[in-house]
């Protein structure tokens, strides 16, 4: 019953910075009329919503707008998405724009730039409103670094009260949303106001390009700091109708390290006060019509998981073997099967292609290192991967897709069953032959 070695065309993709050099254009002709920044610190994944009203004051039309980031921040930048609103009021539609990294020769203090390519060049005197979403990871620094079970977790957030920009900003304002009302301290850059869970810096008027005013916010954040240090996803294609996915996780709690005793009696009896920064549940959003889901680790099955199947998405709620406190780690494997027809298509030129979500299905987690392997069936030829990365993406990617193209002849589908039947056939033939042949020397 020999099954030949599978052709493992493993397409491993690690994400590196795609540093594209674009022709530079002058920055001084553009100014920002109005900038509003909302920083959401409620989870360990920081979302920054930036609304920029940009005006071209120069003579020539501008085709790109630059965003500037301090070098410390650009390392933690996971996703940058930009869009432009067209139309008025109710008929407003948003069009996504391309964002690409860009290097300028005279960047002060190592400032890094991203350029947003506009759909239509901005004519002289015209203004446009851009909306930018930036996602930052690993940007909350726990302080104190070690906490005991009864303490809650405090973190530092470093940023600038003024938006770093290569342009002149006429008016700007920054809102920081904290998870709780407990804020230990924050840098005051007048005018600064704090109300409830919101911290307001600004408005500031007429700031020159590359203005920077560092602020530190020391706040309480007990959201689960779930970081997947390494994730290996393996997608195995079987033309018999299923797609088998195996995901190997190395999970860690990246918050303040747990110090001293872990007391089960306190954790059990006072859940609101003890171990508030620890977490024990994770939610994985899987595609609909998922089947044969398993959740295990090196030493066996983990019995604490729940699966909810839905028409649009399936939700798998998993619980590691033990609650994760700061610095604790857990490794596990999730595997599931998916119907092939939802992900594998045939392109017009006769190639087959797999269109599959790239990122990690766990909600509210950061993935530090991601490897994807695509296992193609035996007999496939010329595999090629198309990875449309619009930006520098080091980390989690939810909305981009991985396309793998390859040639496949359906006749190879029959290889395995044929092999199996022939083995059995030979076995029976040998048996029949053995029973009918008399090998004894005596008569």
């Amino acid at each position, binding site marked *: 019953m020999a099954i*030949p070695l599978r052709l493992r065309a493993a397409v491993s993709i690690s994400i590196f910075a795609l540093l594209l050099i674009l022709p530079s254009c002058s920055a001084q002709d553009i100014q920002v009329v109005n900038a509003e920044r909302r920083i959401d610190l409620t989870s360990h994944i920081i979302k920054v919503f930036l609304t920029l009203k940009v005006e071209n004051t120069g003579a020539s039309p501008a085709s790109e707008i630059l965003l500037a980031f301090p070098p410390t921040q650009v390392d933690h930048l996971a996703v940058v998405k930009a869009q432009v609103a067209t139309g008025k009021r109710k008929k407003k539609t948003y069009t996504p724009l391309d964002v690409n990294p860009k290097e300028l020769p005279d960047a002060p203090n190592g400032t890094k730039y991203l350029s947003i390519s506009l759909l239509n060049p901005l004519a002289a005197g015209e203004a446009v409103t851009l909306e930018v979403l930036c996602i930052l990871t690993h940007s909350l620094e726990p302080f104190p670094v070690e906490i005991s079970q009864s303490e809650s977790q405090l973190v530092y957030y470093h940023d600038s009260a003024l938006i770093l920009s290569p342009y002149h900003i006429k008016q700007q304002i920054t809102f920081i949303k904290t998870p709780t009302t407990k804020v230990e301290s924050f840098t005051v850059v007048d005018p600064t106001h704090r109300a409830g869970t919101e911290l307001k810096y600004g408005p500031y008027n007429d700031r020159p390009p590359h203005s920077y005013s560092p602020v530190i916010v020391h706040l309480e954040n007990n959201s689960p700091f779930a970081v997947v240090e390494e994730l290996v996803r393996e997608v195995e294609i079987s033309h018999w109708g299923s797609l088998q996915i195996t995901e190997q996780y190395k999970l860690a709690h990246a918050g303040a390290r747990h110090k001293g005793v872990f007391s089960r009696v306190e954790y059990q009896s006072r859940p609101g006060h003890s171990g508030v920064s620890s977490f024990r549940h994770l939610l994985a959003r899987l595609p609909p019509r998922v089947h044969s889901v398993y959740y295990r680790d090196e030493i066996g099955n983990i019995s604490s998981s729940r699966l909810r199947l839905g028409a649009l998405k399936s939700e798998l709620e998993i619980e590691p073997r033990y609650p994760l406190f700061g610095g604790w780690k857990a490794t596990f494997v999730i595997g599931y099967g998916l119907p092939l027809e939802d992900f594998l298509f045939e392109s017009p030129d006769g190639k087959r292609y797999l269109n599959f979500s790239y990122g990690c299905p766990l909600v509210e987690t950061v993935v530090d290192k991601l490897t994807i392997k695509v296992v193609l069936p035996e007999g496939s030829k010329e595999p090629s991967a198309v990875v449309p990365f619009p930006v520098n993406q080091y980390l989690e990617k939810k909305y981009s897709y991985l396309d793998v193209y390859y040639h496949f002849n359906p006749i190879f589908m029959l290889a395995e069953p044929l092999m199996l039947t022939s083995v059995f056939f030979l076995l029976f033939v040998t048996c029949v032959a053995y029973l009918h042949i008399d090998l004894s020397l005596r008569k």
Partner: protein
Amino acid sequence: MVGKSEPINGTAKSQPPPSPLSPKSPDLLSGYFSFKSLKLKTKQQELLIRVSILCLVYVLAFVTRLFSVLRYESMIHEFDPYFNYRTTLFLTEKGFYEFWNWFDSESWYPLGRIIGGTLYPGLMVTAALLYWGLRFLRFAVHIREVCVLTAPFFASNTTILAYFFGKEIWDTGAGLVAAALIAICPGYISRSVAGSYDNEGVAIFALLLTFYLFVKAVNTGSLSWGLASAFGYFYMVSAWGGYVFIINLIPLYVLVLLITGRYSMRLYVAYNCMYILGMLLAMQIRFVGFQHVQSGEHMAAMGVFFLMQVFYLLDWLKHLLSDTKLFQAFLRMTVTSAVGVGAVALGVGTASGYISPWTGRFYSLLDPTYAKDHIPIIASVSEHQPTAWSSFMFDFQILLFLFPAGLYFCFKRLSDATIFIVMYGLTSMYFAGVMVRLILVATPAVCLISAIAVSATIKNLTLLLRAKTKAPQSASGKGGSSGKAASKGSLDQSQPFQKNGAIALLFGAFYLLSKYVTHCTWVTSEAYSSPSIVLAARGAHGNRVIFDDYREAYFWLRQNTPPDAKVMSWWDYGYQITAMGNRTVIVDNNTWNNTHIATVGRAMSSYEDEAYEIMRSLDVDYVLVVFGGVTGYSSDDINKFLWMVRIGGGVFPVIKEPDYLVNGEYRVDKGAAPKMLNCLMYKLSYYRFGELTTEYGRPPGYDRARGVEIGNKDIKLEYLEEAFTTSNWIVRIYKVKPPNNRW
């Protein structure tokens, strides 16, 4: 007198047996009348039925052992299998030479253990070969699945072996019944369910293989069968320490044959070939080494070997002398001098230390009370306890009654082969009575002897029935040994009554056998299919609650402690901690160093400050205890604690058992002894337990495993701190604090 047994065994093999089978097969086949249209000959029909029955039994033996996989998961069970799994993993990853030279520094810290020289590699090598074979055939299996399914696979092979063995000692019918009985016998299933990856899983197969090949060699007198049995013995030696049973039973059997005057050239060839080659092969196993010539346990085999030579010499001289009187005198002289020389050699060998005395385990087999008085570490293991009657009933059920009946049939038709099975049955039954775990060794013998009883009884009854319907033909079926009863029956005048009686008895037999099947299935599913790592209980609403605390704790150790951390726990959990937690342990289930275990026992039974000194000297970083007070799990460390005290006290007299007892009674509540309430084990088990309400309507600190409120609720730890406690408190891990700064 020698040739007497040959025709019986000879006929059973070469041609379709005229007496036992031919009256039976048409009877069996009359129901399969439709087959005749296919023009199969009687012989072919019989072969077809036999092969299909064997195939079904083969599958059944495998399938009935899968309860645990279906109910839980494909996992390794219990304690020792985890060590075997870990070593197999090492073997498949690093190869045989690395495995053979493996010095394991992760166990028995700081001593370490030479794994290659202190284990029986048969099981690991078997599993690794299966794994490599499957890999070669392009089956992408995980080594864990191979390990989990090794025991059921070998159990299936054992059924086939039981068929051949039954065929060799009685007839094909008995062989088939034996295969069916052993396939589902709980005594064997207890050690061979899926996941029970232990030496016994393959060893029972190897044991039966050796015995079968040896009996075959004795029956045929063929060198090749003797050689085969030597290799069977080699496999057994490589797989399990129970090979000592073979190397003592076979000489005993040979001795019995010599005494009963059944000495023959066949026996001479079989024994000499098997002993010499088997011994040489066994010396290749490092753990066994030169024990065959140096250890007292193996001397019986050597003595019998020399005795055989004396017999051969005498036989030759008898042939030469042909004078009875002279020969008698010579016989007396030689036998006396031979025995004398043997005794002197043994005495000198023992005195000079060349031959080692019997080990404690061997003594405890011969004298069940020996371990209790001298070696608490052997007595503390539950599977080493003397067997209760109930467990015989549980494991054998009707076989217990069929066994004496089978012995009766064996004695009625005495041959070399039946003498062997009788001796195997009787000795192993004795050992099964001494130790619970040895029921396993007795199981094949009990199944074979019971199969003879069942087969012979049913055959006699069906002969009676057939003799009635075909009265003129019964004369032809007279030839066989069992035909005697039939012919007598046919002549008897009360024939109708006898026929009804036979029918009633047949129905009775089938009723009993079907009861056996239901019993075996029930026992397998209820008692022997729990992995003991994962505990299952019924919740308040009848739902199944899973306590996965062991793996929770071991996985926590694996992930959240430094890789070189040393964990101290009672030796029961050593293998599991190294295999699942991947951390160094102080002692484990390979109880080779009693002093080291006693040191841990002493630490557990001392006050915290004294224990701290011991733990510091052993570089202990974490202490792990198992506690069942919250869940009512009774095999926890508090219930094992008296053994720690006894083993610790056996080496260190400062630990005295009476200090922990109150009027000879073991208590943990308010009336407990003060030393008990303040020793390390008590403190670690009950730390902060006094704050917890375990059961509604009970005071806090109510221990559900022992049903009492604990005596010391205010436990302060000075040198240790709680590092982790599992969700149901079954495993508690403490961190040993570093010493205080001196300034």
